């Protein structure tokens, strides 16, 4: 069945292990199966775009990668480490919350609705986790935080509270906050869907320059222009399965499956 679709590896020099490896990942909420066996691989420094209709399971899959949701079936590895479980004596054991938190530390996540902490300034949002979780010194966390704010073009706003910033600015702070943990993988869950159209560009620009630094990124998005331009891979998910995957330019230009065609005809 279609769950057997995997993303072909583009690099012949397959020495490094994939950053993300999903094998037949399943997830149900109650009796509703949202992911029906997703298999794919993301190589280091790759940008993978997940597209698909709403309710197709792409956001759920993203949330499984940093164990915000526990998978019910299959295996999910990040940088060679099993996510959410530990294999001991031939059985899977639920991970202790402390170890699950340690796994999440290295995975940055950017949410559709920003989810900045409203009671902290922009800089406060950024330095919180490095100081509390990574136990960085306040001085170095602040210095790094200022650098990140500059990188996302908000150096002048370090003392602004989220409510004082526009949606695009908030999302850029949210990206800086995720980067402050020095992640090896960044997950973007529809990062521009809650933005006014004229603010989408500034966020995509930040993401594009992040991709240029070699960050491994998985992006759930409806921005096909971004997928075409920045994506190394495009995966079309519908009804909990990978329907089609490949080079974004060729998939977008010449989709092979009916479902992909009908979806793209609506969004392009």
């Amino acid at each position, binding site marked *: 069945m279609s769950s057997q679709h995997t993303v072909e590896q583009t690099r012949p020099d397959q020495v490094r292990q994939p950053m993300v490896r999903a094998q037949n990942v399943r997830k149900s909420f109650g009796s509703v199966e949202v992911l029906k066996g997703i298999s794919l691989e993301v190589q280091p420094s790759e940008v993978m775009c997940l597209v698909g209709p709403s309710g197709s399971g792409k956001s759920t899959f993203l949330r499984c990668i*940093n164990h*915000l949701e526990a998978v019910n079936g299959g295996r999910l590895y990040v940088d060679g480490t099993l996510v959410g479980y530990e294999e001991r004596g031939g059985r899977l054991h639920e991970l202790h*919350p*402390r170890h699950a*938190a*340690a796994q*999440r*530390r290295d*995975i*940055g*996540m950017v*949410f559709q*609705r920003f*989810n*900045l*902490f*409203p*009671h*902290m*300034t922009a800089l406060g949002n950024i330095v*919180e*986790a490095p100081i*509390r*979780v990574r136990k960085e010194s306040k001085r170095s966390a602040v210095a790094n935080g200022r650098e990140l704010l500059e990188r996302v073009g908000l150096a002048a*706003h370090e003392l*602004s*509270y*989220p*409510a*004082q*910033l*526009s949606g695009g*600015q908030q999302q850029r702070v*949210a990206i800086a*906050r*995720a980067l402050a*943990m020095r992640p090896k993988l960044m997950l973007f869950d529809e990062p521009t869907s809650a933005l006014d159209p004229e603010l989408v560009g500034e966020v995509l620009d930040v993401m594009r320059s992040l991709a240029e630094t070699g960050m491994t990124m998985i992006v759930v998005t409806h921005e096909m222009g971004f997928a075409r331009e920045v994506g190394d891979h495009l995966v079309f998910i519908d009804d909990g399965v990978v329907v089609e995957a490949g080079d974004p330019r060729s998939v977008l230009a010449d989709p092979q499956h009916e479902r992909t065609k009908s979806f793209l005809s609506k969004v392009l």
Partner: protein
Amino acid sequence: MSQGDKDVLTEPGDERISAVPLPRPGRWVAAAVILVLLALFLYGAATNSAYQWTTYWQYLFDQRIAQAALVTIELTVIAMTIALVVGVASAVMRLSDNPVLSGVAWLYIWIFRGTPVYVQLVFWGLLTSIYQEVDLGIPFMVQFTSLSTESWLTPFAAAVIGLGLNQGAYTAEIIRAGVSSVDDGQREASVALGMSWSQTTGRIVFPQAMRVIIPPFGNEFIGMLKTTSLVIAVPFTGDLYTQSQQIAAVLYRPIPLLLVASTWYLAITTVLMVGQHYLEKRFSRGVAGGAARVKDSVTPTDAPAELPLRDGR
């Protein structure tokens, strides 16, 4: 309104509109009536000998009254501290996935919120006769020591425990409502950054919940100040109301001493309100109406150059 219109409305200048205000005679009449009634009442109160104002002034700063006011403040603060600790614990238990913990918290809230505080205070006063000794040790096996309840459950202790446990049930619900009011995305963002449960709760959820918790908790604090007047049920007699009534009983003058007690309650409440105001300000950082101005979302280029902030006339 047809021909005149055009002349008036053509070419509006830059000056601010200075329209003739709508006359509101009803407001003036209502204010006048109320002021007259108030003046009549004050005149009556000042001249009515039943109020016995000389006795009022004589006892307003009486040392026994001041002492009792201090005891009332102690009762209030200690009872609210107990309420806060118990309330946080039961709110956390109520929100827990463990059915035993949330069930026990539900039971506690059900009983202590569902029975009158006066009855509970009587009950705590009788506790020494229900349980005469408290044994410390391993149940049914070893006994380390045995304490008589009378030795530590003084009327004051019974009063603060009674008030505190009653209030704790209400506080638990206030805290639960506050924690539930925080958007799930906040918890998620915090967890996604690798923060632990206690870091998420302490640094992200609670500071935001405080904004919702403080106004009702401040109310409860002021309510507690007045509920302490019920501690005679224990019976504990050191509080402001009971002391003022004891003086009144000796003098046969209940009215001026009621006024004395009311004045003190009102004064303490006022101080508490000021404290509440500053706490609310502290915890509304980032969301207060004043601070929530959107900066820079309007770029200078698309703002009409003429519109805002001309000469400040």
